[in-house]
């Protein structure tokens, strides 16, 4: 499915409003540190996500840092099991940038290992949070549309 806007890469991240609020709330709860979590949804036979998010998993930032994050491995294990038990898989990760824009940092790009994942960023820099989504493949960042849907 092609994106309506040629500036966006596929797939669009489709998130229900309740899950969006869960993500943003977890990011604020994590202050002053960065917060992180995982996204689950359907994938096709080639391992490509459709972009639909069925579950969001707020996770512990094992780094407990305002500059970096590492998803606590136990949270990763449980999220992966939960997603696979429903015939889905993890399709991405989100984390907050407390004082910078919702764009992958050099560290984010360097450590982005999953070419099929969506990497969502939540910026808390301004009064209103900003959530954007990207694919990061071999060091190349491409923005994907974010669509909020009613749950």
């Amino acid at each position, binding site marked *: 499915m092609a994106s309506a806007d040629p500036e966006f890469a596929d797939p669009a991240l489709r998130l229900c409003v309740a899950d969006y609020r869960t993500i943003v709330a977890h990011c604020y709860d994590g202050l002053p540190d960065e917060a*992180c979590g*995982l996204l689950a949804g359907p994938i096709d036979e080639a*391992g490509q996500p459709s972009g639909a998010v069925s579950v969001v998993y707020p996770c512990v930032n094992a*780094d407990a840092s305002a*500059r*970096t*994050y*590492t*998803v606590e*491995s*136990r949270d*990763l*294990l449980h999220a*992966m099991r939960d997603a*696979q038990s429903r015939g889905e*898989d*993890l399709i991405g*990760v989100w*984390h907050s940038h407390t004082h910078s824009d919702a764009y*992958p*940092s*050099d*560290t*984010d790009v360097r*450590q*982005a*290992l*999953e070419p*099929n994942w969506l*990497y969502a960023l939540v910026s808390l820099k301004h009064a209103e949070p900003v959530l954007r989504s990207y694919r990061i493949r071999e060091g190349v960042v491409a923005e994907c549309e974010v669509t909020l849907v009613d749950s």
Partner: protein
Amino acid sequence: MSVEVRVPTLLRPHVGGGASVSSDGATVGEVFQTLIAQFPGLAGNLIDDDGQLHKFVNVYRNDDDIRYLEGLDTKVTDGDVLSILPAVAGG
């Protein structure tokens, strides 16, 4: 001992595409050596040059992080599930 090893999406191309593979060994390290012999592409992804568990990999034996057990010397028994998890991290 026959154990199930769950492989993250990132490493699946090295093991023929499947989400899990069966392997043998008495310890996690032995299981990994068996796996690497079968799937050489895994070598640098699991074990570092010093023979230690790769820094960016976490391994769980059932519900326990092996770093808090005996690392690669952690014993396994029939039916155990080893989950290989990549570090999900950034800045």
